[in-house]
């Protein structure tokens, strides 16, 4: 049991996490780094709201403001929301299907480190001459005209972290297709696994267009190509298409796992099977499918002509149907249930009206002629924050509370959690509801200042107050995390008491091999079925206790990603012309990456075996710990 050997010390722990291929530890890495970037993006949001607090404010200069707004959007989407959702996917989806790890543990680690180094690279732009300033959409004419290296940090950083996302998506797809426990048919998969599956398919199909678009951008800026240079026969509208063919599915990559988390929560805390499970699954697939048909609704004012606008308007409206199906099925899930208002459930309950509000404004914007007024105004800012914050971020906060015990073995404080919720929820509506009206009153988005003669002072001031409420909520959450970690009160398998799916049948956190014996799945909500039939052992098993084959830790993914990181600096500075060190750095960086690929290819790494005796010993240890806990205070919710 080499990787399970009890090492102590801070350095050893760090080394363990850098080299780990365990999906649960990689999940923690995703959560910590995604959480860190979430705080960075949050600080940027606060800077934006402070600047817009009053007319003619000079807290930020015009150029700095554009950098802050660009980095806020880019960070929140690519470096905060996606990684935190990846944390839950990594941690929970393999457990939900009864797998011992993901299909490609090595790739899982590689995906994380690529994301991490890409994100660090992008954020280093702040200290190396200025951040990107063309908006997270990076429209080509503005991006090409942008001075300094900001846009190059954007394109290289997103290329690297984009590889990471693509790898993660492929890994989840293969895992869910191949590694389900006996009896776990597709139509018995928990909804969170389903949404992970569909979101991964979207990643697989949506990231290549972004990569192509960014490659063109890199070639234009670094090598003097003319894909987007109008004066040389290029075309900037092509960038808009590439970006939104990626960008619209990207929204669903974020919201579908959020839907999955809420689906789990509604079922658990209503003690009721998901109403219309089949409809929910097909609605998920339909949303994913339609997600690729509607990108041009981001371009209604580009001048595509009435035929294209009408077609994309109708296609966009159709998406409201499966989304509505989901909302009503969730409502009917809690209808007739026994609702326990824990923190995750409060978030889920708050999500329904918030997301509905964001959804209906989405339909309003699908009306192309009306969108001519709403597009690029504060109305759209309000809309997408209603779906992203009211949907994705509420899901992330709910998921953090729900899965904290499964990831860390302790429960976040319910009391502090409720404080966080109220501050965040009230702040969220205070900040964004009023922005609908700012947009209707003629305020364009992405403006660093506004005149006192425009009539927007009061509403902007209110919006800023709301942002401070949200900030207080997040700070309380941080306090909660620190206090919970210090207290370190361990909990049992099913701390919420009403767990329904496989992850709640095993210890919190699970042993590194997850399931000592692969469980046999007899229906939807397998753990609930066993509970209702009075199975004291937890599950019934599909195999006898035996040796388990596990992968070895590896340092190679870290080195491989580091090589890309180093090479990016070389590429970025090479075109300055006056930096002789740039080309060697580019070559050394790529050398590190390709060298570690060669090592990986030539060196056989067959993993290791956990023997039956070791397993029995470990299981006994887990039982002893559980008994000790029961003897003391009963962990968990009740």
């Amino acid at each position, binding site marked *: 049991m080499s990787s399970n050997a009890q090492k102590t010390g801070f350095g050893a722990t760090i080394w363990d996490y850098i080299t780990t291929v365990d999906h649960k530890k990689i999940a923690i890495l995703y959560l910590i780094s995604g959480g860190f970037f979430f705080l960075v993006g949050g600080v940027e949001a606060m800077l934006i709201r402070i600047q817009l607090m009053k007319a003619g404010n000079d807290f930020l200069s015009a150029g700095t403001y554009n950098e802050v707004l660009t980095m806020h959007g880019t960070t929140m989407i690519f470096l905060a929301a996606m990684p935190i959702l990846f944390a839950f996917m990594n941690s929970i989806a393999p457990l939900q299907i009864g797998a011992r790890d993901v299909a490609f543990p090595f790739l899982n680690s590689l995906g994380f480190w690529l994301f991490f180094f890409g994100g660090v690279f992008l954020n280093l732009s702040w200290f190396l001459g200025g951040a990107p300033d063309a908006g997270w959409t990076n429209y080509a004419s*503005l991006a090409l005209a942008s001075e300094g290296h900001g846009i190059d940090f954007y394109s290289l950083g997103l290329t690297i972290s984009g590889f990471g996302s693509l790898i993660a998506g492929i890994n989840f797809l293969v895992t869910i297709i191949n590694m389900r426990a006996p009896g776990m048919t597709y139509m018995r998969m928990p909804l969170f696994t389903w949404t992970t599956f569909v979101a991964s398919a979207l990643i697989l199909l949506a990231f290549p267009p972004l990569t192509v678009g960014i490659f063109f951008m890199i070639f234009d800026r670094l090598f003097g190509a003319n894909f987007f240079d109008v004066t040389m026969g290029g075309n900037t509208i092509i960038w808009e298409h590439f970006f939104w063919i990626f960008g619209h599915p990207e929204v669903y990559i974020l919201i579908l796992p959020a839907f999955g988390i809420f689906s789990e929560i509604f079922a658990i805390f209503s003690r009721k099977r998901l109403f219309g499970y089949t409809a929910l699954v097909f609605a998920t697939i339909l949303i994913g499918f339609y997600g690729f048909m509607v990108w041009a609704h981001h371009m209604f004012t580009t001048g595509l002509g*009435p035929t294209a606008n009408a077609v994309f308007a109708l296609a966009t409206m159709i998406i409201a149907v499966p989304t*509505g199906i989901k909302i009503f099925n969730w409502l009917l899930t809690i209808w007739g249930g026994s*609702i326990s208002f824990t923190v995750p459930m409060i978030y889920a*309950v708050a999500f329904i*009206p918030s997301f509905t509000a964001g959804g209906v404004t989405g339909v309003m914007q699908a009306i192309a002629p009306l969108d001519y007024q709403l597009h690029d105004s504060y109305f759209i800012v309000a809309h997408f924050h209603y779906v992203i914050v009211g949907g994705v971020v509420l899901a992330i906060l709910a998921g953090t509370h729900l899965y904290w015990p499964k990831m860390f073995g302790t429960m976040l404080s319910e009391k502090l959690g409720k404080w966080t919720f109220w501050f965040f929820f009230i702040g969220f509506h205070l900040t964004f509801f009023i922005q609908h009206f700012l947009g209707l009153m*003629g305020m364009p988005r992405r403006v660093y200042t506004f005149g006192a003669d425009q009539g927007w002072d009061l509403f902007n001031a209110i919006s800023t107050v709301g942002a401070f409420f949200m900030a207080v909520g997040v700070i309380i959450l941080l306090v909660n995390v620190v206090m919970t970690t210090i207290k370190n009160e361990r909990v049992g398998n099913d701390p919420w008491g009403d767990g329904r799916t496989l992850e709640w049948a095993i210890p919190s956190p699970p042993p590194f091999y997850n399931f000592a014996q692969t469980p046999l799945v007899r229906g939807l909500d397998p753990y609930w079925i066993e509970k209702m039939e009075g199975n004291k052992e937890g599950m019934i098993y599909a195999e006898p206790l035996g040796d388990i084959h596990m992968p070895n830790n590896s340092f190679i993914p870290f080195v491989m990603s580091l090589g890309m990181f180093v090479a990016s600096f070389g590429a970025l500075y090479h075109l300055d012309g006056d930096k002789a060190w740039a080309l060697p750095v580019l070559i050394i960086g790529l050398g590190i990456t390709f060298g570690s690929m060669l090592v990986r290819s030539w060196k056989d790494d067959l993993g290791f075996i956990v023997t039956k005796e070791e397993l029995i010993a470990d299981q006994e240890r887990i039982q002893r710990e559980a008994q000790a806990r029961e003897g003391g205070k009963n962990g968990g919710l009740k």
Partner: protein
Amino acid sequence: MMKGPKKWRLFALMTALLVVLSGCGREEISTLIPAGKVAQDQFNLLILSSVVMLFVIIVVSIIYVLAIVKFRRSKVGEDMIPEQVEGSARLEFIWTAIPIVLLLILAVPTVYSTFDLADVTAMDAQTEEGIAESLTVNVTGKLYWWEFEYPEQGIITAQELVVPTGERVYFNLISADIKHSFWIPSIGGKLDVNPENVNTFYLEFDRESAELDNGVFYGKCAELCGPSHALMDFKVKSLNREDFDQWVAGMQEEQEAPTEAVAQEGQALFEQSCIACHATSGVGATPGVGPNLATFGDRNTVAGFMEHNEENLKNWIADPQQYKPGNLMPNAASLNNGEPFSDQELDALAAYLMGLKVEE
């Protein structure tokens, strides 16, 4: 859609009601106080979709509130195990069908209006004498200002669009550099100003801007175009047809030379330092490097967003970068043989520029 006079009146009433309820913003810029046919159509769609969406929200809210009130664990009992219902095909059908019907209600006016607002076929219509029947304005977006060319009239102006009320005005939009977006919220929705192609649409101006508090409608750039995107404003004067014709005639005349000594001094200085980029005659001029200043004295703002007074004008000329970061106007010293303009020179320039008028 909703062409009937009754419905029109109903919506006008609702508009008035909403104004009373306030929170509608300023009439110079709010989409909620439409002052033209296009904005009115879009406002009607806003109201229609808001009503439909309000219906959805009410239905969801009722089920939602009932559910979380009736089925709290404290109410149904701690140990109650609910029936594990699988679903209901009938309910699934209902909440699939009803949204589809609601969307159809929205889809018909959407498609109609999409084509209606894009219909510029009448743009090139000519009278028998070969004169264009309707006014066309060529708009060019530049960092960070707007140029308005009236090709039929042979005149050019900048920063303040002047249009006649009560008729369709057609716009050809193109950018000279970065992508912009042309938006007059209270008159109609925006259309992007792309660097690679001309976008065309029409607007109608139903109100004379003189009735407004500030005497002009506010126009905006709605697409991020660089540091001073927020300051890329323009103003719109809508005049009745008679006044408009008079304005055009004024533009077509030669500018009178200034009579005051200080303004004459300013003119001499202007012709030495500024005229390479800024034309002071609106006639037939080819597009300029900098904004055409023929109507400068008539305008409501300096640089599109500052109050129109000599103080602001002098500050602007002395250091444009301080007020509109990233704009392309050279700094004062490079225009004036390496020396910043003296106070006296600035006074002269301001006096000259403020005297450039075509209106009464």
